[in-house]
């Protein structure tokens, strides 16, 4: 069988991701995580009504990162990710998951070359893109706004 014909066969016949189901799950889970975030910030506002908004947002982020890390630690976040896909990767809880999961995985290789070195294997690109784009946006803001 010729290469081109075989590759076309694979392209035509290979099982595809069930888009409708994946999108619905992703929307529901991603949305629910955001609702939890809103709930957290509402609770913070209840506890400390005098807190400035920027500080409240910071505390909300910290709590969400903790929750993402916690559920990764007890082995539930990956099960959620199996169904939710992007829905659980994109919120900040997913970012926490991408840092904590390699840290746990490489715990056995020691603190320095295991946990600390491997911690950013997944999240590294996100940090790089985050910093680079913030610099670009900052420069645009400095000159044009």
């Amino acid at each position, binding site marked *: 069988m010729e290469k081109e014909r075989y590759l076309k066969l694979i392209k035509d016949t290979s099982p595809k991701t069930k888009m409708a189901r994946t999108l619905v799950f992703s929307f529901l889970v991603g949305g629910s995580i955001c609702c939890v975030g809103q709930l957290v910030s509402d609770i913070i506002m209840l506890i400390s009504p005098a807190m400035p908004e920027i500080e409240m947002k910071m505390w909300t982020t910290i709590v969400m990162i903790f929750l993402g890390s916690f559920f990764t630690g007890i082995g539930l976040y990956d099960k959620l990710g199996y169904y939710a896909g992007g829905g*659980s990767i994109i919120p900040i809880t*997913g970012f926490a998951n991408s840092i904590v999961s390699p840290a746990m*995985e490489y715990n056995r290789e020691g603190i320095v070359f295991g946990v600390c070195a491997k911690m950013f294997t997944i999240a590294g690109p996100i940090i790089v893109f985050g910093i680079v784009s913030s610099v670009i946006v900052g420069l645009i803001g400095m000159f044009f706004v």
Partner: protein
Amino acid sequence: MKCGERSFIFDNSVYVRSGYTIVGDKEGKGNYGNYFDLVLSDDLWGQKSYERAECKMHKEAILGAMQKAGINESDIGLMLAGDLMNEIVGSGFAARDFACGFMGLYNACATYGEALLLGGMLISAGYEKYVTCSSSSHFSTAERQYRYPLELGTQRTPTSQWTVTGAGCTVLSAEFGEEGFPLVTAGTIGRVIDMGVEDEGNMGGAMAPAAADTIITHLRDTKRDASYYDLILTGDLGKYGKELLQYILADEGYDGINNLQDCGAIYFTEDQKTEQGGSGAGCANTLFNGYFLKKMLQGKYSKILLVPTGALLSRDTPLQKETIPSIAHAIAFEKK
């Protein structure tokens, strides 16, 4: 005796003396859970890491097979072993506890086939009397090496497969052992085939052409019809890979082969969510030693052509835009 392009028919008898398998918890809950010799309830098996657990499984599988064959360490002339971990540490570390000759092999998931072919040749030629052929894979060591950390919340692609946690060992011998065991009678050495598949999430697609090539070469070289065998058993093509294999065989003029089966495709149940099924160096090995060898003993099958398949890539090669080369070896088991 060499026969045709890449096949051999063994001149002297090569007896299968025993087969022993150890699998993980998920495998034990799969379709063939009752047939394995030892099912672990914990994939770590009391070890500090999954790598150590795989080494222990590999070692215990060899010991189990030796015990089942009723032989001692001193009888073994050579251990042929391989696994999927970098630098095949699973086999090398397992072998340090034996005072036997050792040769480490790597053909990815086709390693078990490579071991059987070489072991058969050495015994048939009279160089060895007892050879152990073993291989292992572990889901958790393979995931971190080829894919992502275990706890990362990613989705599996529909064409992906689940690496089997399992180790198995077959003892081959020049001496007749127990009644009912098959002989290794023939084999075909595979060649590396690359059809340009780039997706490392579709191993079945990458390996199916290699399996087809080896099966066709075997049938042509030995002048046998596919129906000569009760079963042609491929390694870990998975459900979709098996469909592709059937398509390629039909395309090459070998249609109507209705005795094809794939170890990966039947390993797990639907509910276990493994997408296309099992894979790994322990897949074909544990299912053959665990289930099919026992069924041969019981008389359900008398001739099986085992075709373990392997994809010869590393984690980095797909990132470097390389395609996936694959290989498959064929070994004929027959009861006389």
